[in-house]
């Protein structure tokens, strides 16, 4: 892949989560990456205000790293890391568990932190496993319906109900 700004090979792949154009990926060579990432390079044509507006988050990775992470898919909602990269939005709460190591550099880039300090839910959550199981079952049911496997869909629905009732009884 060539750099978007010159003929050199693109060795940096930068994911922008916010900014004027919405989430997008940039493929650039080392020189252009440095230029792009340096805080003083507020692009001409965009006002200083626009610079402030687009609280830009940047993550640097090598092409190899990207290729392998991009293949990964969440077992619960099915989103791949590549899809997340393109749309900038995760698929389900479990993604934070499944993609934990891949998200960590991104979180540090955005927030300068990877740990929550602050408000907590006052009640104890149902076990995380149960939550993820419900998410997963709902997805399986949707797939079963799409494939017209109605018997399977009914089984799944019953299991969802059992799990939901367990919660109500807790």
């Amino acid at each position, binding site marked *: 892949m060539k750099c978007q700004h010159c003929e050199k090979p693109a060795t940096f792949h930068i994911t922008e989560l916010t900014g004027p154009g919405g989430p997008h990926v940039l493929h650039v060579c080392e020189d252009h990456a440095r230029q792009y990432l340096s805080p003083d390079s507020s692009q001409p044509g965009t006002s200083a205000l626009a610079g*402030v507006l687009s609280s830009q988050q940047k993550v640097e990775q090598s092409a190899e790293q990207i290729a392998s992470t991009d293949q990964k898919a969440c077992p619960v909602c099915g989103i791949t890391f590549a899809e997340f990269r393109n749309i900038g*939005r995760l698929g389900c709460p479990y993604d934070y568990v499944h993609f934990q190591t891949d998200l960590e550099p991104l979180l540090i880039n955005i927030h*300068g932190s990877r*740990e*929550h300090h602050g408000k*907590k839910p006052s009640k104890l959550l149902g076990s995380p496993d149960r939550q993820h199981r419900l998410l997963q079952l709902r997805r399986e049911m949707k797939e079963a319906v799409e494939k017209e496997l109605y018997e399977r869909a009914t089984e799944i629905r019953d299991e969802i109900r059992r799990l939901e009732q367990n919660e109500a009884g807790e």
Partner: protein
Amino acid sequence: MKLDELAGKCGEWLKGTGPEADIVISSRIRLARNLSEFPFVRRCTEGDKRSILRAARQAVEAIDEWKDVEFLDVEPLSDLDRQFLVERQLISRELSEAEGPRGVAVDGTERFSVMVNEEDHLRIQVIRSGLDLKSAWQDAAEIDDRLERKLTFAYLEKLGYLTACPTNVGTGLRVSVMLHLPALVITRQIEKVFRSLQKMNVAVRGLFGEGSQFTGDFYQVSNQITLGRSEEALLQQVEYVVPQLIEYERKARNFLMTNSEHDLHDDVSRAYGILQTAKKISSDETMLYLSKVRMGVNLGLIRELEIPVVNKLLIHTQPAHLQKLRGKILNTTDRNIERAGYLQKHLAKRN
């Protein structure tokens, strides 16, 4: 609560009360929350969205203290009604333009709203007049607690509240303050001031203006990060910056009053005159002149007007409000005529 009834009224947050209300229009707290058992909204099926909407509605309606809270189903609303809610700041443009089952719970005095199926399953929003972040945060935390007794939010010990976009994870908190900074714009210091804020973990953006962010000199300052700091610490980041902005703006106003009072007075009076006499006027132009008039009132250059009236006009002259108040759909030209008439009626000379 009927939307048409709302139209004639004015939300609490526009009352022009609260600390620093001459410069700070409003303080806002937003919390992003998701139900743990569903995919994030973008990956939801229509059925998922309907289940989320139902769960949210049941939770809201089961809260005893919320007798005055109305739950609106947004999907079946007309374009005009949705636009009306956007102008009112009860829902976001994003929720208005989204598809599928979605809704909003609105407090009777418009102090808070809870959007359902926007980017996250729930977006709690509290608005206060003037600079009043602490009480807005206390209210938001209480709303969160109440909802949480009925719903299970996606939360991890390590990462906090889980959100569709990683930029909101952790506290899910966005603290924003809306400021009116006309003198900083006139004296061309605004960009310099904002550039100095860049290093202070806050974001600034223009407000109201559809086309240009400078329309009306209204700006919003908010925190940039949501993870790794407590809600109180994030509040403080914004609370630290806002008084500085207020001081800069006051200094700029003093400077203008000392060095070019005639020019300023002339500018303000002309703006006032146009608003009082124009026969057709666009939304952007109205905003521009109302901004000048607002400053004029605060500086004592216009004596017969009060800030709450100006605040109300800022909202009531927007397209959907005008049409709601008139009780019919109007095209752009008719709206411009209607707007001029509305302004004339409310800014009539009182002799």
